[in-house]
């Protein structure tokens, strides 16, 4: 998280830290056996990571306190239309992880609500992005062991597309923005999600209840002026999520 703050205990109880082959990723608890994350977190070079290689941590804001209390998933379900062969296609960047045993919820672990079918992603709608990913300290990139968060607004889809198009002129190998994605951030930069936050939640609070609007997916650098973070638009996957959970 760039430009964010350390999250106090029990404020983001759905936050999950994934550790896969020494790489960090994020996730969010959505049911007592299910974790929602980004597909690219559990797929490496086109290959789905084996369940035994995935370690799942939750229930705390400090990695040191969680490092011995991880669980392995029972199964991993990547969206069938996710197809990133070269690291440039983040369309359908969504996956579900099923746990071996159900979780008993408490103040430290609680599920995040899924979006209502009629939920809207209005420009300016502020979401809470969190993760154990890269942070910065006076312009230097840092690895943090504390859960951090930042509040970011939803960006107009066209503004975001223009931003990406501009960058594409310089770097043609830039992923495309699709309708399954939305952007969040500020034009001035300085606040963003970053590497290691992928798969984590972009949650929106309405009247004290938070719901999962997005999944940290990708972006051009981190916290750069005129660039935004890109998030998987969860509302587009409600049927798929329901189907996977019912079938498994």
């Amino acid at each position, binding site marked *: 998280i760039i430009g964010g703050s350390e999250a106090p205990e029990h404020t983001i109880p759905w936050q999950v830290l994934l550790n896969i082959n020494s790489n960090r990723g994020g996730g969010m608890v959505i*049911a007592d056996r299910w974790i929602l994350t980004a597909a690219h977190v559990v797929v490496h070079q086109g290959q789905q990571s084996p369940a035994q290689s995935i370690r799942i941590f939750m229930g705390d804001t400090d990695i040191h306190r969680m490092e011995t209390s991880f669980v392995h998933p029972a199964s991993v379900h990547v969206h069938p239309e996710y197809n990133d062969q070269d690291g440039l296609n983040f369309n359908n960047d969504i996956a579900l992880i099923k746990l071996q045993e159900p979780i008993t*919820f408490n103040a430290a672990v609680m599920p995040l*609500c899924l979006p209502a079918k009629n939920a809207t992603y209005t420009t300016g709608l502020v979401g809470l992005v969190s993760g154990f990913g890269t942070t910065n300290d006076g312009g230097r990139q840092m690895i943090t062991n504390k859960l951090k968060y930042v509040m970011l607004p939803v960006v107009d889809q066209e503004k975001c597309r223009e931003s990406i198009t501009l960058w594409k002129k310089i770097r043609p190998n830039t992923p495309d923005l699709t309708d399954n994605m939305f952007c969040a951030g500020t034009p001035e930069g300085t606040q963003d999600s970053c590497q290691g936050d992928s798969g984590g939640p972009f949650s929106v*609070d309405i009247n*004290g209840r938070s719901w999962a609007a997005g999944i940290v997916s990708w972006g051009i650098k981190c916290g750069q002026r005129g660039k935004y973070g890109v998030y998987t638009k969860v509302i587009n996957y409600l049927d798929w999520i329901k189907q996977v959970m019912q079938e498994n």
Partner: protein
Amino acid sequence: SLPLPDSGPLIHGEVKSPQYPQPYPPNLLKQWDLNVPEGFQIRLTFTHLDIEPSAGCYYDSVTVLYDKKLLGKFCGTENSANDHHPGYEPILSPGNRLTLVFQTDDYNPERRQNVGFSAQYQATDIDECSAPEPEDGSGPLCSQICLNTLGSYLCACHHGYELHSDQRTCMLSCGGGIFDEPTGHLFSPGYPNPAPHALSCQYVISVEAGFTVYLNFSDKFHIESVNTEEGPNCYYHWLELTVPHEKPVKLCGGTSPGLINTNSNNVTLDYHTDDQGLSNGWSLDYSTNRVKCPVPGVVVKGRVTPSLTEYFYRDYIYVRCDQGYKLMADGREIESFSTMCQSNAQWHLPLPECHIIDCGEPDPLLNGGVRFLSGAENQYLSTVEYHCNEPFYSLLGSTNVTFTCEADRKWRLTRDESFSPVCLPVCGRPTQYIEGYQR
């Protein structure tokens, strides 16, 4: 057929003189003793007789005897002119025995050789009933009806009389015997006229176990009694009532006993008169009623049906428990209960008890709990409240839910609905919020 053993007397046969049909030898004395079964007489027929004729059959003869009584002495031939030939008419013995004696002298005329005799005999039934009355004054063979039978006879009596133990004398019938119908009418011989003397009549009323016999004597009751210092006494004539396990009671006098409940299904009445005195006798109608069982007690939290003031043999009662209670007998739960009033005036099963039902422990609730609100634990109408571990779980649409132990032994939300509470996770409501006051 006649019941004759193989080794017994013959029922028919033939007797021939020695060497017949060759001439008989001189100096003979031969005797045949014929026997047939008792009750029969012997019919003897000479089929041929050719014995030297002589006056009075002096030289040669065949003599027929019954117990030394001469029935005939025969000689000659069919064509001879004397009266000593028996002809072909049969000779009947008075009893079941007959003796033939054939006797010849030492001389036989040479001009003619006599061949002797040949005779057939057979057993013939004696008609004892036709026999004249014995002269010893013992009276007729049967006092009323005599029935001749093969080899014997039977005595029988006219209606209203019965054969005495001597098998020949008929006496006025007692009308006694065994009465097993539920109702009936009995009366002494000759009633309401004076009874014959020396009566000994027995009447047994025996009905199915479970019934009680009631005797209802008619008003006209007269059995001779003897007045003593202690009062009237049934010395010579009496009617004795006997029921099992009770001391017999003798009735006499001129007052009807009226209605008597014998409390038994077996009653014996012995009517006795001696050879003197006068009793006009008695008459009664008997009826039967089912024995009565005790009124069953009260079953707490239950109901005994049908509810009657009296219960009789073969009556059934049923016990049902109030709603929320179960039938228990001998420490075991039973599905239903009925008991029958037995012939011994006792119920065949004791009454059961009604115990309150138990719904058992309410199911535990995952991520929640249950606590008792009222009533004895787990018993009928006790209530429990389910709750979820808030704020992380909540019951669908409610904070708490109350279940009641119903009569069907299930914990139910309402009488018609069986519902299993579920604690749903609460999503998106952290216990701590990120607060920021600086603006």
